[in-house]
């Protein structure tokens, strides 16, 4: 059985000419031309992410030393096998410390599993997203490139606490 199109309100002749509609459309389009633009002009203005942004992983440095106890959980959970941890004895008041902590940024997929699994809140996804390397060796980030003082990542730590 063929279906019939039932319009609740048939268009008047003026409406069917579509000219008023076109004029209304053009008024909307032209008014949008004068509204503010959303483009971020990249090299001059950079996008500043909020605390919930998942950038590159960094080690938190508190009181001059890293919080990490070299438990190896982040290395085990990393889906891209990007983290390598080498533990060793230490005088400080913790079990062990990482003598070598290396993340291969070419493998890291910025998933954040290492941050989720860390029992010490020692590795955090920061808000840095600009990663440029000129050769493969530069992409292996050791402790020197990963340590970041706690003030810089406090926003992320607060965000994680509030959403635990």
């Amino acid at each position, binding site marked *: 059985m063929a279906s019939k199109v039932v319009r609740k309100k048939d268009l008047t002749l003026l409406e069917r000419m579509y000219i008023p509609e076109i004029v209304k459309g053009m008024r909307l389009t032209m008014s949008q*031309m004068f509204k503010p633009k959303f483009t971020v002009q990249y090299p001059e203005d950079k996008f500043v992410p909020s605390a919930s942004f998942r950038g590159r992983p960094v080690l938190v440095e508190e009181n001059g030393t890293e919080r990490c106890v070299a438990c190896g959980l982040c290395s085990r959970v990393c889906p891209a096998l990007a983290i390598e941890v080498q533990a060793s004895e230490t005088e400080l008041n913790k079990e062990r410390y990482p003598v070598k902590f290396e993340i291969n940024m070419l493998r890291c997929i910025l998933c954040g599993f290492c941050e989720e699994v860390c029992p010490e809140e020692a590795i955090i996804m920061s808000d840095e997203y600009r990663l440029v390397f000129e050769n493969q060796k530069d992409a292996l980030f050791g402790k020197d490139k990963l340590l970041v003082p706690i003030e810089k990542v406090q926003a992320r730590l607060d965000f994680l606490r509030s959403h635990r």
Partner: protein
Amino acid sequence: MDIIEPLVKIVFIFLINLTTVAYLVLVERRVSAFIQNRIGPNRVGPAGLFQPVADIVKLFLKEDIVPKAANKFVHSLAPLISLVVAMATFAVIPFGNSIHLFGRDIKLMIADVNVGILYILALSSLGVYGITLSGWSSNNKYSLLGGLRSSAQMISYELSMGLSIIGVLMIAGTLQLDKIVESQAHGMWYFWRTPMSFITFVVASFAETNRLPFDLPEAEPELVGGYHTEYSGMKFGLFFLAEYANMITASAIIATLYLGGWQLPFVGHLGLPDIAVSLLQIAAFGIKVGLVLLFFIVIRWTIPRFRYDQLMNIGWKVMLPLALVNILITGIGLLW
């Protein structure tokens, strides 16, 4: 000696036309970006002004791929037809009043043929060849369909275009474009004297130039690019330029026939020297064409596309009767 004057005019208008076509692409990208709350290309020069140069260089350096089974001669010929036809139409459009230079009266149009507007209609019919041949010679189902659709669309709307112009011709009493412009002096522009003819002509020119809302033949989601699928490099560039050149031509014709051409109603009263008046009139023509072009661009980004059957429906069942009724009304109006 007599050949220098047309030669100078040809070179001048050709260069201006080519530059405007190239920059129109940039203007469209910028305006469409502003409408969509973003900035268009602004990196290449100050405010992106060298972008067309970058585009043209890129197109020249791209590899020119011709499908193995395509008809090489026609494949190369088709975009040339489109572009040449689009540019040739400019030969009869008057840019300004006759100016008095070097002791002679120079008309600001390249060729003052006495069939003026008929020449333009004939050339736009030739433009259909460019698209049909490109679709056909590509040896590609989608291009063929796109070419066929486009040519059917252009032919249908040529009828309403021609018939709607008759309203203007009846009032002006002449086919010659410069006399039509002269008859629109003192603000007696034809767009308010024959509004229905104006509207039908504008709609028909959107369809003639394959421009949204009538651009199904080149709509990518519909037809994988339509008639210019198999074109790359400068041949594609030629098609692109031809589309914008067609747009400029259509705007120039609309400005000439309906918006008073180079007429500026109040300029006679200002008491300026003749050469300043002529320059103002040329500028007025340029501004009118520019405004119509802006209208073309904004409409593209405002209205959704017509489906092909809706398009043909409108062309034959709505535009054609409207154009005929317009002739009737104009005739009755003239008799009174």
